[in-house]
């Protein structure tokens, strides 16, 4: 009995913070109305945003006022996870409203688009040629905020009873500075800098201002939504593609790595494991695709090179911009892209996938195993990797955690691909599309569309959600939430 009392109080605090996030979310819902600057005519659609904005604000204020803890309460990591879960579900719910009202999507389609946006995937079920600018801007904005880990930044900022351990709950724990607020501030600054620089770069490369802003947001968040159905391919421009490549790579860099880069300490970057992985995989991927795929499909040779380079970067960084369709690609090309999508981008960045760091660590672990055979039997070998400026000694436990994660990832990949294949799609298409969803990439062979089977869309939705939050937070928080609800209801 007392336990339930206590549990209720904990949930009051949890809901209070969820409320706070809803209030902030209300502002995000208002931002797309700046599209009215371009198309004042769309003002008639503004209700589509004002309604959810109001709902979010009201719900938020209600939660905050009613549940606001009078006394100082500290929350645990698990409770932080529950806040993350509930907040995101709420944010998704509010965000579907504009799509349902304005674009008249079905519930499934709206949820899909919304989740694809917030998880910075980029797969889409809408026809951008008939979509109002405010909706397009909305999609890009939610990718921008989703990439930054909206919830975590805000909570780190207030850094009240939910301490910085919360960032671990979101799967992002990076220390740029010796205090979480400072780190959060730096991350925001870097991110904002990217957004502004990216927009300007795109304008200079020849895009309209509206397109430039949208694509800059989508690029640095490694999201991949585009205002054109052919994505970046619509411009067929070397400069646009180059700007994209730079932004995609920047977006997929671990924020700590980016910070080191911006401070000019290039020497440290040379030791960085993720940089090694990129330095190996990108050229390799580009070479294979160029020689075996694009040079056979595209004319002239320059175009073939561009395609090889662009598609490789887009898949590894899990952005999802594309310059071509994949229908004519051969199996080898598919294997390369799928592998890159599974491997993914840097940890503690906006990218998805298994993450380069884990791949790097396992590769290193393999190397250490081999080395061990050549050392004297009683020799002690301390295994480390470089993290920024410091050595981090790797324990068996760390390797175990990574191995388990990769197992979970692969299992989910197989199950998800199976669900897609069940509806009659080919092997290569199913694997491709689901890898894209799970890795929050956004490249598509065409399976994802407004009339895709509902279950396929839901499988992808679950894949995107689990992939973005790296499984454990969601699963553990969901289980906890479920158990707690049962306990309280009893």
């Amino acid at each position: 009995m007392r336990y339930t009392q206590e549990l209720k109080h904990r949930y009051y605090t949890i809901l209070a913070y969820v409320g706070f996030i809803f209030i902030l979310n209300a502002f995000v819902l208002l931002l797309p109305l700046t599209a009215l600057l371009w198309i004042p005519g769309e003002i008639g659609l503004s209700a589509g945003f004002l309604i959810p904005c109001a709902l979010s604000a009201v719900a938020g204020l209600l939660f905050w006022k009613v549940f606001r803890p009078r006394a100082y309460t500290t929350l645990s990591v698990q409770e932080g996870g529950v806040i993350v879960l509930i907040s995101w579900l709420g944010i998704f719910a509010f965000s579907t409203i504009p799509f349902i009202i304005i674009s008249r999507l079905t519930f499934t389609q709206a949820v899909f688009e919304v989740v694809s946006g917030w998880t910075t995937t980029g797969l889409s079920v809408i026809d951008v040629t008939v979509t109002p600018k405010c909706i397009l801007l909305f999609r890009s904005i939610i990718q921008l905020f989703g990439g930054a880990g909206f919830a975590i930044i805000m909570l780190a900022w207030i850094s009240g009873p939910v301490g910085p351990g919360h960032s671990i709950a979101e799967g992002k724990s990076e220390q740029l500075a010796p205090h979480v607020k400072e780190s959060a501030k730096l991350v925001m600054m870097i991110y904002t800098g990217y957004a502004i620089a990216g927009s300007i770069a795109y304008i200079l490369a020849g895009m309209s201002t509206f397109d430039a802003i949208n694509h800059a947001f989508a690029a640095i968040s490694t999201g991949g939504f585009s205002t054109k159905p052919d994505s970046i391919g619509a411009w067929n421009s070397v400069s646009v593609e180059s700007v994209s490549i730079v932004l995609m790579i920047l977006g997929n860099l671990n924020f700590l790595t980016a910070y080191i880069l911006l401070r000019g300490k290039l020497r440290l970057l040379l030791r960085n494991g993720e940089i090694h992985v990129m330095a190996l995989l990108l050229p390799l991927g580009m070479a294979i695709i160029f020689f075996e795929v694009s040079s056979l499909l595209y004319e002239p040779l320059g175009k073939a090179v561009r395609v090889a380079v662009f598609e490789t970067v887009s898949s590894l960084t899990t952005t999802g911009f594309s310059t071509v369709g994949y229908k004519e690609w051969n199996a080898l090309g598919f294997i390369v892209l799928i592998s890159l999508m599974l491997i993914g981008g840097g940890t503690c960045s906006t990218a998805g996938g298994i993450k380069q760091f884990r791949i790097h660590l396992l590769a290193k672990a393999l190397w250490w195993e081999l080395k061990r055979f050549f050392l004297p039997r009683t020799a002690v070998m301390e295994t480390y990797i470089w993290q920024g400026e410091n050595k981090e000694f790797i324990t068996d436990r760390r390797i175990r955690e990574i191995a388990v994660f990769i197992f979970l990832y692969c299992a989910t990949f197989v199950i998800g691909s199976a669900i897609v294949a069940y509806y009659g799609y080919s092997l290569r298409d199913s694997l491709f599309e689901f890898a894209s969803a799970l890795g929050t990439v956004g490249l598509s062979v065409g399976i994802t569309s407004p009339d895709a089977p509902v279950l396929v869309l839901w499988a992808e939705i679950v894949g995107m959600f689990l992939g973005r939050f790296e499984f454990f937070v969601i699963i553990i928080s969901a289980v906890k939430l479920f158990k707690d609800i049962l306990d309280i209801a009893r």
Partner: protein
Amino acid sequence: MKKYKRLYIIIVGCGRLGAYLANRFSHAGHSVVVIDQDMESFEKLSFHFSGFKMEGDATEVQVLKQAKIKNADLLLATTEHDNINLMVAQVGKKIFNVPRVMARVYIPDREDIYRELDIETICPTTIVGDLVADMYAASFFDDNLEEGTS
């Protein structure tokens, strides 16, 4: 309205006192770096701690430099070993000009020397000892009075 300033604090030694101070300062919004030779000692840091943790021997100048001691506003030496605390405090104060430096010293006799060197020290032995002695000195007096009147 008091103006809040974020300080850069280095704490050497993540024992009970060090961890307590680290948690408290980090939670209050300051930038904290904790140095300790034993990785496991960092487990004493709470959920609220968002500073840097450095594994190393603070009697090595390299380690202090890596912790960016030049930028420190406050240096607290709280290891279990007086001598380490005293050395770190002096290096911090005299060599790196950290504005405020404090060393915990268990052996009371050593304190005076360090006062002379202008190092702030805190001696749990004397502080607690004096506190306890005062507590009982007071009650000792009351008993006496009672006896006197009876």
